[in-house]
């Protein structure tokens, strides 16, 4: 295959991403478990990339977790999403950018359903009018927030203070990219690289000087699966999926894991603690875990944000080994202190997983 052919094929795996004027849709999980991520994303877009982003406080959950757990009916979730579109329309925006992969999948699924069944869209418009007296226009462009970062990856590389290189040896840092299932596995044409060659995160790692790790279970699910986790009896199956991935990636000695789905980030981080407590196994060197970062956190680190300002102390697996490799300066004593210097309290030290 010649280069022209490859470029031609790759063109089919691209998606259109708006340049500016984004309506931001927050994620339930991300703002709960990684509270600095969304703040960092908004700050980077507004103050580093000079983009216009609306973060409407009236925006609610998309109810995706309830929908995938069979407790929220499809008409309900469609009406909730229609309200989100109404808020976007009222603000005068046309580009919807959800922070959550579940929401991104939900928006994509609903827009696709409405395209094929216009009568359902009409019914939902009627439901929304009855409930809220609101009307909406469908977004012209729908992109996940990691798509936005991917679009501006070179601009970010130009502004970056640090890179994904080990400052001691100069070697590129090895990053595992873990893309949420609902990003492109359901609607391949809606993701960069489709379901077969998703490049949204590996593209970031490469652009910022790192080396993406290709390992056997690279495209395996993290195991969240909604009911797999929510029902305690199924939780052993959920953790087994993450364990399978950790065992597969461990042989390649990754320096970090990068996620774009809030659920994946949470589970790949917290399950490392669970597995260590249940079976005494840790996956990083010397009893440490493999640090897990959201793409917003990694972007913020490269741009010189303080690790504790973007909430990295909320992670179960210690990120300090990665910060040391990247040469990022941080104050260890400030880890569990707020901006006024007051103590936030410290978590108890795990039995096996080293966190200090």
């Amino acid at each position, binding site marked *: 295959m010649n280069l022209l052919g490859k470029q031609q094929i790759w063109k089919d795996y691209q998606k259109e991403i708006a340049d500016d004027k984004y309506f931001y849709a927050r994620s339930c999980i991300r703002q709960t478990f990684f509270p600095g991520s969304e703040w960092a994303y908004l700050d980077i877009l507004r103050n580093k990339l000079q983009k216009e982003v609306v973060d409407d406080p009236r925006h609610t959950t998309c109810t995706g977790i309830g929908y995938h757990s069979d407790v929220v009916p499809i008409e309900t979730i469609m009406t909730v999403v229609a309200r989100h579109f109404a808020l976007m329309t009222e603000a005068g925006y046309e580009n919807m950018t959800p922070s959550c992969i579940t929401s991104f999948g939900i928006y994509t699924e609903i827009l696709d359903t409405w395209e094929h069944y216009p009568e359902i869209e009409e019914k939902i418009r009627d439901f929304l009018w009855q409930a809220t007296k609101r009307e909406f226009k469908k977004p012209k462009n729908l992109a996940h927030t990691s798509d936005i970062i991917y679009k501006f990856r070179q601009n970010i590389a130009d502004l970056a203070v640090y890179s994904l290189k080990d400052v001691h040896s100069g070697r590129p840092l090895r990053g595992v990219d873990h893309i949420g299932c609902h990003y492109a596995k359901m609607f391949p044409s809606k993701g960069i690289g489709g379901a077969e060659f998703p490049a949204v995160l590996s593209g970031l790692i490469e652009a910022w000087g790192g080396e993406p790790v290709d390992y056997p279970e690279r495209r395996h699910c993290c195991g969240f699966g909604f009911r797999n986790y929510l029902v*305690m009896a199924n939780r*052993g*199956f959920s*953790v*087994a999926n993450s364990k*399978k991935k950790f065992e597969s990636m461990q042989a390649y000695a990754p320096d970090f894991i990068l996620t774009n789905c809030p659920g994946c980030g949470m589970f790949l981080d917290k399950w490392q603690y669970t*597995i260590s407590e*249940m079976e005494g196994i840790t996956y990083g060197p010397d009893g440490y875990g493999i640090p897990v970062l959201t793409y917003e956190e990694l972007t913020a680190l490269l741009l010189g944000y303080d690790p504790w300002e973007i909430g990295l102390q909320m992670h179960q697996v210690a990120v300090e080994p990665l910060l040391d490799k990247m040469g990022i300066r941080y104050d260890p004593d400030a880890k569990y202190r707020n901006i006024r210097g007051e103590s936030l309290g410290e978590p108890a030290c795990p039995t096996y997983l080293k966190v200090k």
Partner: protein
Amino acid sequence: MTTLWGYSISETRSIDYDKNDKTFALYLAEKVPSSKLCIGCGSCTATCTAGNLTEFNIRKLQMLVKRGENQEALNNLSKCMLCGKCLLVCPRGVDTRKMILTLIQYLRK
């Protein structure tokens, strides 16, 4: 531990060829070379007397041995009644009866 957490980590059902023990399969291939001719058609299983009465499945058995999934194969060996009907129907001429006897012999060693 399960009581503390309310669940335990499910065992993986994936087959790891790098870790599985192949000595059983190699012994069988050496002693019964015709076992390598099997195409997995399942005629042996369809005609099996024991298979009509139990969950014994000779096609599955030889597949388990070749994959190195020895424990499950061992659990089923004793169900064979050695009638030899499988041998008569095999389109590839695999000496299935000898295969079973060889595996049992290996176990007794």
